[in-house]
C-alpha cells in the first residue's frame, strides 16, 4: 500500500479545528452548570461504604440509613435548596482501598465532602489522604483516633460517640453491678486497641482490675481456642468483637461456659446484624450489652425514633420490615443519619456553594456545640467538641430479658466526657 494524499482525508489544520470545536463542546456543560450552580446543581456527597469484606453487614445497613436520610433531606428541600446526591464507593473494608476511594472522590467524582466509614483501620488508612486532598471527611467509626489527635483537621466525627467515652461511662456500671475482676476480649486492630487502652484505666479508677486482655483478629473464624486464657477467678467477661464471624464468636462463648462462668458484659458490636434469638444464644439471657441506640424498641421510645425506624424500614426488633431475618446494625447506623444532618446544618451555616467553601464548612461544624434531640438526631441530645472534632452523647446499657434487649441504664453526657487531647482548630487548613 502506498501513501497518497486523499482530499477527503482530514488535513492537520482541519483536525485541529475539529479538536478545538470538540473541546469547546465538551466544556460547554461545565460553564453552563456553573452559571446557575447555586440553585440547581446537586451537592455530591462521597459515601465510602464497606459493601464487601469483613464490614459488609455494617455497609448494607449504613447504606440503607444513608438512603433514608438523603430521601428525608431532599424531601425537605435538600441543602441550601440544592438536592443531595450520594456517590457511593465500596472500600472492601480495606484501608488501602479506602485511601484509593478517597482519591477517587476528590479527583474523579469531584464530590463536595466524603463520609461514612466505620472500621477504624479504614479510617486511619484514609484520613491522611483526605487531609492531603483537603477533602472534608466525616467518619462514623467510634474510634478514638479522631479525638486522640492522630488524624487531621479535615477529619471529623460528629455523628457517633467514640470508644473512650463509651468505655469510661460503662466502667462504673460494670464494677458496681457485675464485678470487679474483669477479663476483656477485643478485636486485634485499632478499634479493639481503643477498648484495651481505655478500659484498663477506667476499671482501675473504679477499684477493679483487668485480669487478662485477649486480642482476637477480626478475620478469625473459630474462637474456642482463645477462651481458655480467661482466668478462672474472672467475675466479668467484657467482650467486643467485629467481623463476619461474630455469631460464631458468641455461640462458642456459650458452648465454652456451658451455663456456668462469669457475668457477661458485651458491646453490641459482638451481635450487630445477628438476631439475639438465634439458636445457641439462649445463654445470653440475663447478660448486659452496651448499645449506641437500643435495637429493640423501648417503652419510652421518642416520636423521632419511631419515625426514624419507619424511614429506614426496621421493625421493633431492629430487623428489616421486608425480611425479619435481616437484622440491622441498629446500635451504630444512626451515626450515618446524624452525620448527614450535621453536614446539612454545617453547609447551611457556612453558606456552602462549592469546594472553595470546604474550610468554611469545617469551621461551621467546629462551631457547633449543643445538638438537641430531633428528627435529625433521633439517638438523643449530643454535645460536639469542635477542638477534638468528636461528638459526645448518651450511652445505653441493656439487659437480655426474655429474648429482648431491655434498657436498664442510660448515661448522662457528662459521664462520657474526658479532657481534650488535641485542638484541631489550631491546625492550618
Amino acid at each position: 500500500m502506498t501513501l497518497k494524499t486523499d482530499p477527503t482525508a482530514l488535513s492537520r489544520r482541519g483536525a485541529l479545528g475539529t479538536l478545538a470545536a470538540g473541546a469547546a463542546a465538551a466544556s460547554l456543560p461545565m460553564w453552563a452548570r456553573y452559571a446557575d450552580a447555586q440553585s440547581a446543581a446537586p451537592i455530591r456527597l462521597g459515601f465510602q461504604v464497606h459493601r464487601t469484606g469483613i464490614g459488609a453487614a455494617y455497609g448494607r445497613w449504613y447504606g440503607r440509613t444513608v438512603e433514608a436520610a438523603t430521601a428525608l433531606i431532599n424531601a425537605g428541600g435538600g441543602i441550601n435548596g440544592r438536592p443531595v446526591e450520594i456517590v457511593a464507593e465500596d472500600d472492601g473494608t480495606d484501608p488501602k482501598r479506602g485511601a484509593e476511594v478517597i482519591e477517587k472522590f476528590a479527583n474523579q467524582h469531584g464530590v463536595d465532602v466524603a463520609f461514612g466509614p466505620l472500621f477504624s483501620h479504614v479510617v486511619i488508612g484514609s484520613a491522611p489522604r483526605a487531609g492531603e486532598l483537603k477533602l472534608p471527611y466525616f467518619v462514623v467509626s467510634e474510634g478514638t483516633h479522631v479525638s486522640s489527635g492522630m488524624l487531621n483537621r479535615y477529619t471529623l466525627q460528629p455523628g457517633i460517640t467514640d470508644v473512650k467515652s463509651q468505655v469510661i461511662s460503662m466502667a462504673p456500671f460494670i464494677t458496681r453491678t457485675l464485678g470487679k475482676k474483669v477479663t476483656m476480649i477485643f478485636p486485634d486492630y485499632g478499634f479493639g486497641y481503643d477498648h484495651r487502652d481505655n478500659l484498663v484505666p477506667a476499671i482501675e479508677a473504679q477499684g477493679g482490675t483487668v485480669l487478662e486482655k485477649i486480642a482476637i483478629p477480626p478475620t478469625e473464624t473459630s474462637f474456642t481456642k482463645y477462651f481458655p486464657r480467661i482466668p478462672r477467678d474472672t467475675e466479668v467477661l467484657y467482650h467486643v468483637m467485629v467481623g463476619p464471624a461474630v455469631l460464631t464468636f458468641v455461640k462458642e462463648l456459650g458452648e465454652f461456659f456451658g451455663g456456668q462462668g462469669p457475668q457477661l458484659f458485651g458491646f453490641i458490636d459482638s451481635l450487630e446484624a445477628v438476631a439475639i434469638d438465634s439458636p445457641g444464644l439462649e445463654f445470653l439471657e440475663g447478660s448486659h450489652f452496651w448499645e449506641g441506640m437500643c435495637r429493640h424498641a423501648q417503652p419510652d421510645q421518642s416520636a423521632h425514633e419511631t419515625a426514624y425506624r419507619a424511614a429506614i424500614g426496621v421493625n421493633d426488633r431492629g430487623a428489616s420490615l421486608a425480611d425479619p431475618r435481616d437484622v440491622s446494625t441498629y446500635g451504630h447506623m444512626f451515626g450515618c443519619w446524624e452525620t448527614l444532618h450535621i453536614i446539612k446544618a454545617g453547609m447551611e451555616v457556612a453558606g456552602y456553594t462549592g469546594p472553595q467553601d470546604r474550610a468554611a464548612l469545617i469551621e461551621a461544624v467546629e462551631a457547633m456545640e449543643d445538638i438537641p434531640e430531633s428528627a435529625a438526631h433521633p439517638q438523643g441530645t449530643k454535645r460536639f467538641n469542635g477542638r477534638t472534632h468528636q461528638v459526645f452523647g448518651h450511652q445505653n446499657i441493656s439487659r437480655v430479658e426474655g429474648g429482648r434487649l431491655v434498657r436498664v441504664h442510660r448515661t448522662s453526657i457528662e459521664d462520657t466526657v474526658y479532657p481534650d487531647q488535641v485542638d484541631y482548630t489550631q491546625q492550618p487548613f
Partner: protein
Amino acid sequence: MEFGPHLMLATLEGAVTAAVLALTAAGLSLVFGVMRVVNIAHGEFFMLGAVLAWWVTQAVAGPWGFALALVIAPLLVGALAVVADVTILKRLSYDPERTIVATIGLLYILQQLTLMTYGPDARPVVAPFNTRIALPWLERGADGWALIWPWGLGTTTYKLAVIGAAAAVLCALWLFLARTRAGLVMRATQADREMATAFGVPVERVYALTFGLGAALAALAAVLIVPIQQAHYLMGADPLLLSFIVVIIGGLGSLPGTLVAAVLIGLSDGIISVFFSPTLAKILATLLVALVLVFRPQGLFGARGR
C-alpha cells in the same frame, strides 16, 4: 485454666481442625499427585461447598436438609470442577505454569460470582445436632481424688461427629484408591502418565474425574465445618494456605503423608494457639514448611523425584 484441662481442650479443638484440614488437603494432594496441577482455586471449591450447604439448608429445613447438603454440595462442586477441567485445564495441556495462572483466574471468578449472587455476608447453617458435653477432670481435693467439671472444659456432639465423619471419608478414600479399579487407574496415571496411556487408560477422563473428586473432597470438608464456622465468600483463603502447608510437609501427592501432616498441623495449630497465640501457630507452620523445603524437599512421605 489449669494445664491438664487446657491441654485436653486444645487437643480437641486441634482435632477438629485436623479432620477438616485432612479432607481438604487430601483433595489438593490427589489433584497434584495425579495431574501435577497446583490448584490455587481449591479454597474456592471449599467455599462453594459451604455456600451450597447454606442454600440447601435454606430450601430444606431440619436435619434432612443438612444430610441433603452433605450429598448435593460435593456433587455439584465436583461437577463444576469437571467442567472447569474440561474447558480450561485440558486446553492448557495441563502445563504446570499455565494451570497455576488459570486456577488463580478461576479463584477470582468463583469468589466474585459468589459475592455477586450470595452476597458479602456470613450466614450460619444450623447443625443437625449440637449438644454440649461437659468433660470431667480429676482433681486431688481434701478427701482424695475427685472428678470435677470445670467450666470451659467441654466439646459438642457435632464437633465429635465432624472428627468421626472426616475419618470415615478418608478411610473410604483410601479404600477407593487401593481396592477399586478406578483407584487403580488413578494410581497408574499418577505413577506414569505415558505408560498409562500406552496401556489404554483414558487419561483425560481420569484427569477430569480426579479434579472433580479433589474439589468434592474440599466441598465435603466445608459442609462439615460450616455449622461451626458460617459460610462466607472469603472463607477459602485459610484452608487453601493450610492445605498447601500440609501437602508440602506431607509430600506432594502422598495421601498418608497428607494425613500425618494434617494431624500434625491441625493439632499443633490447636495446641499452640491455645497456649501461646494463633499467630505463633501460623508462624511455626510456615517455618516448618521452609525447613521441609530445605532439608527434605520431597516432603516427609514423598518419593524422590523421578
